[in-house]
Each structure stands twice: as structure tokens, then as C-alpha cells.
């Protein structure tokens, strides 16, 4: 299990009071800029969204959002439905080109890269709908990634099996992915994203539709990912309870804007967060 972060960088910040001038080269808030400039620090390879906006035909899905995922942590991204969480994740994984702002991997500007280039650079994700290859076996689903990323057939099979084994679905390796129960499907999707370990793993509501106990079991795995694979995890959820127990830091989105960031305890006390979750209508 990861220890909770206690540095100053977890202090709350309100992006809607952000008054930085437009066009500033590095729009990251100061604690994060500080870590970025320490080139020797391992956080020099942070995955960051800097001032990201996405508009669909003039309608803003997300507006000027900043977010940094660090290796070794589980960062929670929460917000009510329609807050823009998936859009932000799409931007961070190359599935959506931001209308404004940049995506940075360390010092490298990777805005506009294709999704497959993001994956090769070490940014992996899962999808809300799972999107397994239903006509292929569970093992083959995971192997596809490993082979696609350049592993030999033999190495791909071995690494795929390791990932399935760790996630407790090795018994289903030879079953067709289309017949798996929902909870196993989610685990296979995570295995598929984790094989040939990425530096960052973005999980889009992996626990959606699960019972509390299934959800807790899945989060047990999520919490172990940073320690085991050395990657940073961005966990998207709309259920507060889920992220409160497993994330060292939380970013809250509402209406496409970042309304809070900090430790779970601090975020929970934020009036903006409380009203976003409870006070609407």
C-alpha cells in the first residue's frame, strides 16, 4: 500500500480563481513547476495536462484544467456525471486533441500525438466499456498488446500470463473474453493495459456498476499497482467513497473545471465539492 503524501503540493487550489495571464509558457501551479524543474528527481517524468480546454462545436467540455500525475501515486479524479472526467482522460491519452493547452510527459510536449504513440511512450488506459476482443481468449486479449508493443510471441504469452495471474483471472486465460462475468472483464482490461508495464495507467471508472465488496477488491489491486509496476495511476470515479479510501491526492472536476485538489480529507471539506455533489438543484 502506498503511504499518503504529505508535501506542500497537496494544498488546495481553486482553478476557478486562477488569474494567470494567458499564454504563459508554463502554466502549472508553483509547487508542481518546482518539481518539474528538478531534472534529477524521478518526477521529471510527470504526466501533466497544462491549461487543457476541449470544446465540442463551441460547447466547452473542459476548461483550462491543470492536472499532474506522478509516478508511484494513485491520483483520484472525481466529479459528478458530465463533469468532463473522461474527456480529460481522453486528452491525457491522445484520444482527444485538446482545443487549447498542452499535454506534457516530463519535459516533452506530446500534445497531438496519436493514442498508439501515447501507449508506446508509456501512457496506458482502460475504457469504461471494457472493449475487450470478445471473440478472442482472455490470454490473447492481453497478448495482443504485448505483441503490438514489440514482444515476441513467447515473451508476450509469458508476460500476459503474469499479469492475469496477478489480477486473479489466470484461470480464465483460455476462455473467450465475450463470456466473462463483468468483474473479470474489468480485470482483464486492466491486465491488458498493464502488460509491458506503462509509466502511467489511467483507469476510467473501473469499478462502475460493481457492488461495494467487488469494488473494494478491485481497488485493492489498483492500490498495489504503483508499488508493483512503478507507475502512476489516475483513477477516475464518480463515487466519492471509492477514491477517499485509495488515493493519496484527489482532483475534483465540476462543469469542466477543476474546483479542488488535495488530500481526500481536505477535499471532502471543500464547500465547492460538497455543493457539486450534494447541493445541485
Amino acid at each position, binding site marked *: 500500500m502506498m503511504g499518503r503524501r504529505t508535501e506542500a503540493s497537496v494544498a488546495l487550489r481553486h482553478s476557478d480563481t486562477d488569474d494567470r495571464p494567458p499564454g504563459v509558457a508554463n502554466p502549472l501551479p508553483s509547487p508542481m513547476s518546482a518539481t518539474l524543474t528538478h531534472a534529477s528527481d524521478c518526477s521529471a517524468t510527470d504526466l501533466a495536462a497544462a491549461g487543457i480546454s476541449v470544446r465540442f462545436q463551441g460547447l466547452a467540455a473542459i476548461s483550462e484544467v491543470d492536472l499532474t500525475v506522478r509516478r508511484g501515486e494513485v491520483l483520484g479524479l472525481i466529479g459528478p456525471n458530465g463533469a468532463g472526467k473522461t474527456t480529460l482522460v481522453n486528452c491525457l491519452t491522445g484520444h482527444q486533441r485538446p482545443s487549447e493547452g498542452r499535454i506534457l510527459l516530463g519535459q516533452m510536449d506530446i500534445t497531438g500525438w496519436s493514442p*498508439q504513440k501515447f501507449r508506446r511512450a508509456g501512457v496506458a488506459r482502460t475504457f469504461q466499456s471494457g472493449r475487450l*476482443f470478445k471473440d478472442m481468449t482472455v490470454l*490473447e486479449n492481453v*497478448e495482443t*498488446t504485448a*505483441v*503490438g508493443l*514489440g514482444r515476441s510471441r513467447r515473451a508476450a504469452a509469458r508476460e500476459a500470463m503474469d499479469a492475469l495471474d496477478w489480477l486473479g483471472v489466470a484461470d480464465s486465460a483460455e476462455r473467450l473474453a465475450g463470456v466473462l462475468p463483468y468483474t473479470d472483464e474489468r480485470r482483464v482490461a486492466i491486465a491488458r493495459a498493464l502488460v509491458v508495464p506503462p509509466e502511467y495507467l489511467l483507469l476510467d471508472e473501473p469499478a462502475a456498476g460493481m457492488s461495494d465488496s467487488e469494488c473494494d477488491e478491485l481497488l485493492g489491486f489498483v492500490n498495489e499497482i504503483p508499488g508493483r509496476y512503478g507507475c502512476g495511476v489516475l483513477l477516475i470515479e464518480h463515487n466519492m467513497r471509492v477514491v477517499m479510501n485509495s488515493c493519496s491526492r484527489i482532483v475534483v472536476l465540476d462543469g469542466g473545471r477543476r474546483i479542488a485538489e488535495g488530500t481526500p480529507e481536505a477535499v471532502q471539506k471543500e464547500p465547492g465539492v460538497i455543493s457539486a455533489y450534494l447541493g445541485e438543484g
Partner: protein
Amino acid sequence: MITFLQNVLDALSLGSLYALTALGIGLIFGVLKLINFAHGDFITFGAYALIIPSSADVAQVLVGGWSWELLIPTVCIAVIAIALASDYLVFRPLRGASPPTLMAASFALSYVIQNAIMVIYGARPKSVNLWPVLGDQTHVGPLTIPNLNLVTIAVTLALMVGMTIVLRRTSVGIQMRAAAEDFRMARYLGVRADLVIGLAFVISGALAAVAALLLVAQTGSLTQTMGQPIALFAFIATVVGGMGSLAGAVVGGFVIGAIVIMFQAYLPPDLRAFRDAFAFAFVILVLVAKPSGLLRAKGLVERV
């Protein structure tokens, strides 16, 4: 009983031809969502590759006179070349276009190939005597089996087994199946699009070449439209089997072959001329009962 067994062998033989063609169409559909109506013209092209290009009435065989070890690869290469050229010149510029656009383009390509063959070889049918030994018959007990039927069934089974091994065991095969099921997802996971698409056209071309040779051996004649009826039946086979499923394409091919032969054999004699109408009526029944085909194409069905 003996007649029935003969009919079964005929059905398997015709089904083999449809299955080979349906697999070629299904593979391209899976990877590109392209319903390639020019596949039948790939078959025609493969057949014409046997003779020297000329508009003379009497065909001069060139490749068609070679020994089979040389003939088969040569025809395969010719058809693979036209398949890859079609991709490069027609379908690649249309990547990302909608499936109806791609289908219209394949119709256009089909007519271009047909007319090009007519310009070069003339409009008259030509006769070609390929592998006369296949016209002989083998007697197995009370059964009389045309050698061609045996070869067709054996070649098809061998190709199916070979393709299954490639698709299941090799690294490129796994990538291909992933791409056939969900191309965007496969691409995201690192599967190389150009490799998979190129290979799909290579395999599809080779299958068309084999179908062409079996067809010429059977009919002994060449026409510019010879590949089209097979491609039509094969296309229907992919729909019946379940569009998007490779196994479905093969099953569909054999089902259509069986239907056609059995109607031919067991319809009252007066109605046999309308065999195809009955066959298609059966197809409509299948589709009404199972709109997504006999083998559900899982990749195309949204889960709730």
C-alpha cells in the same frame, strides 16, 4: 442413400468454393469494414492470368501450361499483386471513409477490372483446359466421386487449417484477429495497421487465386464476369454466417453450398430452374430468424 452421399460431396465441394471466397471477403470486411465487391474480379483476373493476353478467340495458355508447383504460386502472386494494387490505388486514399463509400468504390473497381479484362482479352468467352486429370472420377465403393470435388474439398480444408494455425499461433495472426474485431482498439494497443491491412489483402488475394484455379478446372472457360456469381453467393454467405466473424464466413459458405445443391437435387424437377430463388428465400428466412447471422459477430453487437 448413395445419391444422398453424392449430393453431400457436391455440397461440400461447392460449399468449399463459397467458403474460400467468403473468407477472402470476410477478412477484408473485418479489418477495413470494406465489403469488397471486386473480390469476384480478383478471381476472374486470376483465371485470365493463365493465358497470354490477346483478344484472339482461341486462348494461348502460358502459365496455364506450367507444372502445378510453378503455376499455383504464379497465379497467387498475380492476384495478390492486383489486390495490393487495389488497396494502394483505391482503398488507401479512402481510409476513414464510411463503409457505404468504400462499398461504392469497390463496385467501381469491379467494373474497371472487368472492362480492362474485356479490352485486353476481348469480350468472347475462351476455353482453357486446366488439369484434365481432375475431370476423371474416383470410385470409392458404390460412390463415384469427381477428382475435382476431392481436390476442392481437400485444398479448402488444408487452407482453413493453415489459416487457423496462422491466426491462432503467430504473432501477426493474433494482431490480425484483434484488428478484425475492433480495428481502432487494436491500433491503440500497438497493432500495426499497415501490416495487418496489407496481410489481409495478401491472404484475400491468395484465396481468390485458389478459387480461380478451382473454378477454371471445373468450368474450363474464361469470361469477364466469371468470378461475380461466386462472389455474390460468398458475400451472402458472410452475411448468413455473421458479418465480421471469420468462422461465420466459412460456415455460411458451406451452408449456402449445401442449400443450393440440395435444392438442385430434391426440388421437384419443374422447380429446379428456380433453385436460386428458393436458396435466397431460405437466406431471407435465416436472416429474419437471426438478423446478425448464424454465428453472432460479437464485435458488432453492443453489450447492454
